């Protein structure tokens, strides 16, 4: 397939893999902070192609995984209100809240619909004027612009029965939080799609302030292998900087149009990350001008604070301190068909990726 096969060339991957083999005696930890990367790494068996000294750890890159239990609980409360239709991306359906999941509520009769875009959710609102349609907004700088567009359209076209329950988050604050934590990271495999929106400059503080390597990376095996080599070279040469490997999609400036609409609709707030805790200015909520579309303000959905399974180590996994294999629950009580922690729920979660693809070496 054009524009795919070129990036899946087994011979070139092998050449890079051989070049990397000389680093087998080093001890380098690289963290990916994008669920798409976690998936691709395991789908293509990248760890089986890396020298022993190069370790990949999965950070908080899966939006479903980092969404707090209280967000799911709020969504469930919303789904129980008369005449409310919940619209959501599919992955959220099975995420366990403190007592139930949206999937369970749906089987009990709540009107919960999986959509593939925010505009589809908006169309449902237009077609059901007598109902209140709540869209569950999750994701980073990649999906936030789509939510922003829907809110803007609802505002302009006066669609008054559409609401956003926002768990949107942004990347740089959590990366900084990890660097201030006890996690050992030598380099970041920086997210590709997030960076296409934000530009690569949002990572500049990382080499400048923390002397940590950054490479913005694409999602094909050659992208990943090339980026890993670029990161290792930065670490070995002790010359941390922000490099763009994924130059076919990412610039330093990013997509200024998408940035503008995000700035118009959203403002930052302190937000809770599952397993990590509260991080200042890491979440997005609707600005005052759009408060009539904010599900949190419109509906009575106050919930208790976090209440996580104490044996679940999703938090440590999301911070890269542990791998799914370290978890007592992994593949025993916790599996994709019965997820306990959030990392098992989304196909992009570290535990689900480990479960599905493993690292067979």
């Amino acid at each position: 397939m054009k524009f795919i096969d070129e990036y899946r060339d087994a011979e070139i991957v092998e050449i890079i893999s051989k070049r990397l083999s000389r680093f087998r005696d080093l001890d380098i930890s690289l963290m990916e902070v994008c669920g798409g990367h976690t998936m691709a790494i395991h789908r293509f068996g990248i760890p089986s192609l890396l020298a022993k000294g190069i370790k990949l750890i999965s950070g908080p890159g899966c939006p479903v995984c980092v969404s707090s239990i209280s967000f799911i609980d709020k969504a469930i409360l919303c789904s129980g209100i008369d005449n409310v239709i919940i619209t959501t991306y599919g992955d959220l359906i099975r995420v366990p809240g403190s007592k139930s999941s949206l999937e369970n509520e749906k089987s009990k009769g709540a009107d919960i619909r999986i959509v593939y875009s925010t505009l589809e959710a908006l169309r449902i609102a237009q077609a059901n004027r007598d109902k209140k349609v709540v869209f569950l907004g999750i994701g980073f700088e990649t999906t936030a612009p789509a939510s922003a567009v829907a809110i803007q359209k609802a505002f302009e076209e006066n669609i008054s029965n559409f609401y956003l329950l926002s768990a949107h988050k942004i990347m740089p604050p959590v990366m900084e939080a990890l660097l201030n934590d006890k996690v050992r990271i030598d380099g970041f495999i920086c997210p590709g799609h997030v960076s296409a929106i934000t530009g690569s400059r949002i990572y500049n503080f990382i080499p400048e302030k923390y002397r940590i390597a950054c490479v913005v990376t694409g999602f094909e095996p050659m992208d990943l292998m090339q980026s890993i080599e670029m990161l290792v070279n930065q670490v070995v040469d002790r010359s941390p900087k922000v490099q763009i490997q994924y130059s076919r999609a990412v610039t330093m400036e990013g997509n200024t149009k998408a940035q503008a609409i995000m700035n118009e609709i959203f403002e930052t707030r302190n937000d809770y990350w599952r397993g990590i805790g509260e991080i200042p200015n890491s979440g997005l909520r609707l600005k005052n001008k759009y408060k009539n579309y904010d599900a949190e303000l419109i509906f009575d959905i106050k919930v208790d604070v976090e209440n996580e399974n104490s044996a679940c180590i999703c938090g440590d996994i999301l911070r890269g301190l542990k791998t799914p294999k370290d978890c007592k629950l992994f593949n025993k009580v916790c599996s994709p068909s019965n997820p306990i922690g959030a990392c098992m729920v989304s196909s992009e979660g570290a535990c689900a990726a480990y479960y599905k693809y493993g690292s067979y070496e």
Partner: protein
Amino acid sequence: MNELITLNHGGGGKASQDLIKNIFIKSFGDPRSILSDSAILKIDSNKIACTTDSFVIDPIFFPGGDIGKLAVCGTVNDLAVSGAVPKYLTVSFILEEGLPIKDLKRIVESISVQAKLANIKIVAGDTKVVNNGKCDKIFINTTGIGIFENDYTYIGSGEKVSVGDKLLVNGTIGDHSIAVLGARNELDFKTDIQSDCACLNELIQSVLKAGKRVKFMRDVTRGGLATVLNELVGIVNLGLELEEKEIPVKESVRGLCEVLGFDPLYLANEGKVLMVVHPDDAEGVIEILNKNLLGIESRIIGEVVSDHPGMVIGKTEIGGKRIINMLQGEQLPRIC
């Protein structure tokens, strides 16, 4: 918290299997029995194959087929992969009040055509009508009876599978899922992909009649190729190694999988069979399959190995290795 039936229980993956094991087998069956596509019934010294299936697809008409064609093919294929020759079929309808008669006619005509093509005789049927909203347009149940011309009963049990055997598939995977998804109009994409829905009995019989050593067969439906392969390792306790780049996938299906975040190995098919064949016969089987329209893209996709028993390992297209597990939950598009 999982005390209710969720859609996941119908996905054909692990949750479906757990449901069968923990609810149905517990009450109906022998927990040691192998769950194959057809039951083998002994009447005096004769063995017959029996299978039953229900069809609830949405939409009822889709590119490459409809619920009627699907109902015949699904049951015929379950018999055929057991090594049986399909003979008799029963068809039961649950109809929703308000279903246009012309839709029903079209479906019944489709059933009739497929049954003739597959040389299976419709011998009994039933009709129920339920209130509007109590079922979705039409549900169909079919039961099929087949006979064995030779003693192929080992094909369903997999007892003859051994190290070195080759894994074969008769064409591109994932077409059915993508065609149905496209027909649902939820994704805002249009495709020209047709469902692979087809009766495979003639194709399969042509291989068996040539005397080729087919040791195991299963039709690749819900849960996809990955799930069938995992069912196989569960039965034989050997390992499987897949050459992922050999697995045929249409370019357009691959493209949509990339966009939607699907893995073709987990997509449903309705006209595909996985065969496990003696290594010396594998090329010969491919030649025979190639002669039939339903097998022109047949490929050897891997082999049975002694390493990692109970595990399916895929050699990825770039030379890495990964574990291929059974489908867990429905495949859902990526969100970031």
